[in-house]
């Protein structure tokens, strides 16, 4: 099932939750809506599900107007952030709910419902929990039951709101991998909302980065990471060093001192230089685009993090350096950005 969203606008009073959003989701895709809180990503998801209505714009599934249908008629599986399991029903009845409320004419008989629920519980590997109640489950188990419940109605689209938001770090990592595998298995067009860039980049086929009700960039995880379209995307995805620079006449200056890098495009005037921490290469003292003095070195994980006070005097920056490079506080170094972007300020 393809989803197409055209010029969607939704306001809550004076606040524009969605400010002209266009989006196409291909059949079988696993798409992430990534953005800070208040960026409109959950509103977009709820409108696609039919739980909210836009002020203007279009939503269509396979070319058919979805806004003409209510939430119950869209065959959309929705997994809520806090799962919203029915607390007075057993796990079995929770999963069976969508099958039991079907109109009498199409409703399956009891044996078929039982078989289907069993199959779904096996799919999420929790068939042994059928008789428990939601309050007896862990967060990760609730999450998977919520997913099984949403899948029971054989949805054409699966929507997940912050699916891992309320879980602790370890469970989260396991579930990410599990969700990706599950999507591979059932291959339903799926959209999930997250504010966690790592989650979006790791799980999704494509990532939609949103801010202030607008889409900033749509691309594969590699594209949004390596070629951020806007300053916001660069700052939001991955850790970036931001330096205030001035571009004039093809020269890039930091606090008046010229830096030996080429400006991009037609930019001119006050701008911002964005570099990722690991994209600033250490050079021998006296060479490189920037110069500085190592203030502090901390080693952990695969890299060491060095704090360098720039000779250009802008600020102290933190960069990631391979462990093999021997660095000492007080050492003078040169720095060259191997990859960078300059955006107008």
């Amino acid at each position, binding site marked *: 099932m393809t989803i197409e969203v055209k010029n969607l606008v939704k306001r809550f009073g004076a606040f524009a939750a969605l400010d002209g959003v266009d989006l196409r989701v291909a059949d079988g895709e696993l798409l992430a809506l990534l953005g800070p809180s208040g960026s409109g990503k959950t509103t977009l998801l709820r409108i696609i599900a039919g739980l909210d209505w836009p002020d203007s714009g279009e939503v269509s599934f396979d070319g058919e107007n979805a806004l003409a249908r209510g939430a119950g008629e869209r065959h959309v599986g*929705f997994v*809520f952030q806090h799962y*919203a399991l029915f607390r007075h029903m057993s796990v079995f009845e929770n999963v069976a709910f969508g099958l039991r*409320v079907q109109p009498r004419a199409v409703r399956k008989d009891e044996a078929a419902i039982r078989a289907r629920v069993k199959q779904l519980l096996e799919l999420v590997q929790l068939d042994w929990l059928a008789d428990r109640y939601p309050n007896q489950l862990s967060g990760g188990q609730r999450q998977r039951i919520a997913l099984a419940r949403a899948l029971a109605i054989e949805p054409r689209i699966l929507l997940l709101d912050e699916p891992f938001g309320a879980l602790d770090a370890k469970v989260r990592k396991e579930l990410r991998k599990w969700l990706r595998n599950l999507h591979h298995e059932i291959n339903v067009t799926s959209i999930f909302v997250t504010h966690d860039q790592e989650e979006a980049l790791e799980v999704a086929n494509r990532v939609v980065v949103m801010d202030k009700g607008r889409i900033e960039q749509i691309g594969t995880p590699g594209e949004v990471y390596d070629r951020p379209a806007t300053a916001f995307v660069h700052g939001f995805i991955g850790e970036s060093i931001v330096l205030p620079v001035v571009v004039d006449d093809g020269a890039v200056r930091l606090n008046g001192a010229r830096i030996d890098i080429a400006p991009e495009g037609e930019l001119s005037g006050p701008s911002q230089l964005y570099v990722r921490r690991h994209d600033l290469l250490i050079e021998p003292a006296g060479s490189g685009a920037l110069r500085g003095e190592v203030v502090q070195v901390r080693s952990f994980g695969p890299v060491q993090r060095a704090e360098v006070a720039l000779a250009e005097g802008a600020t102290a920056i933190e960069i990631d350096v391979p462990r093999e490079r021997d660095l000492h506080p007080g050492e003078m170094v040169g720095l060259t950005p191997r990859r960078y972007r300059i955006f107008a300020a």
Partner: protein
Amino acid sequence: MSIEMTLQRERSRRSVASSDAGTSARAAAQVRTEPSTVRIAIIATAMIFLGVFVVLPLVMVFAQAFSRGMTAYLAALAEPEALSAIRLTLLVALISVSLNMVFGLVAAWAIAKFKFSGKTILITLIDLPFSVSPVISGMVFVLLFGAQGYFGSWLQSHDIQILFAVPGIALATTFVTFPFVARALIPLMQEQGTQEEEAAISLGASGLQTFFRVTLPNIKWGVLYGVLLCNARAMGEFGAVSVVSGHIRGETNTMPLVVEILYNEYQFVAAFAIASLLAMLALITLIAKALLERHLDEGKLSDDH
């Protein structure tokens, strides 16, 4: 008892640990709790107050009711006037509790699950029957439906009797007891939010299916709690009913009204016999309330994630 023992254990553990055992431990205990005399005085005051103002009157009601023995008690209850009062009270309670269950559910639903302007005004208005004297509540209905009231002549020409009849008593009682169900449900429904309903709807449930399969099971203990308190008040209401009833013997007197009439006529046994029924209703209500509160607490506890 167990608190006492833990304290004791705590004290002895401390006294062993400290170098200057006896005195410092006692000093520590002195700092941490009030002297036993103060404790006893506070508890005794509370118990005596409760005894004099609550238990003693309750006992007196039953003592008076049975002062001439069981036969006199039963005879008083078997009087046609008493029986008709009991029947009327039950009928009025049934009507007003059913109405208020529906109104309360609708009001609580609207307030807890929808956003609309004027919501705070609605919440304040729901409490109005509690803040107004019941006598005034009764007067309002006299003003509306009385012979000189707004609808008085219209009602008369259509031969509809509201005042001094069952409809008037039921209306006044319904008005006075309106807040109970709504009050019990609003916080409960607000806390539960709308996510489970949204989940049900996205799974294809209709509005009615969502209400009966998801919303109602989640609030059933709250509804029962509200109904219980509403019923207790409906059966015991005096002020508002007294104004609209007209005190027609054997016809429009509810139990509280009959108690007053019999008492004024020096028929103490009969008055207290009926009063004892109301007192028993109160006791049963209290017990049921305690049981329901336990259920409500469990519902809240089971819910935290």
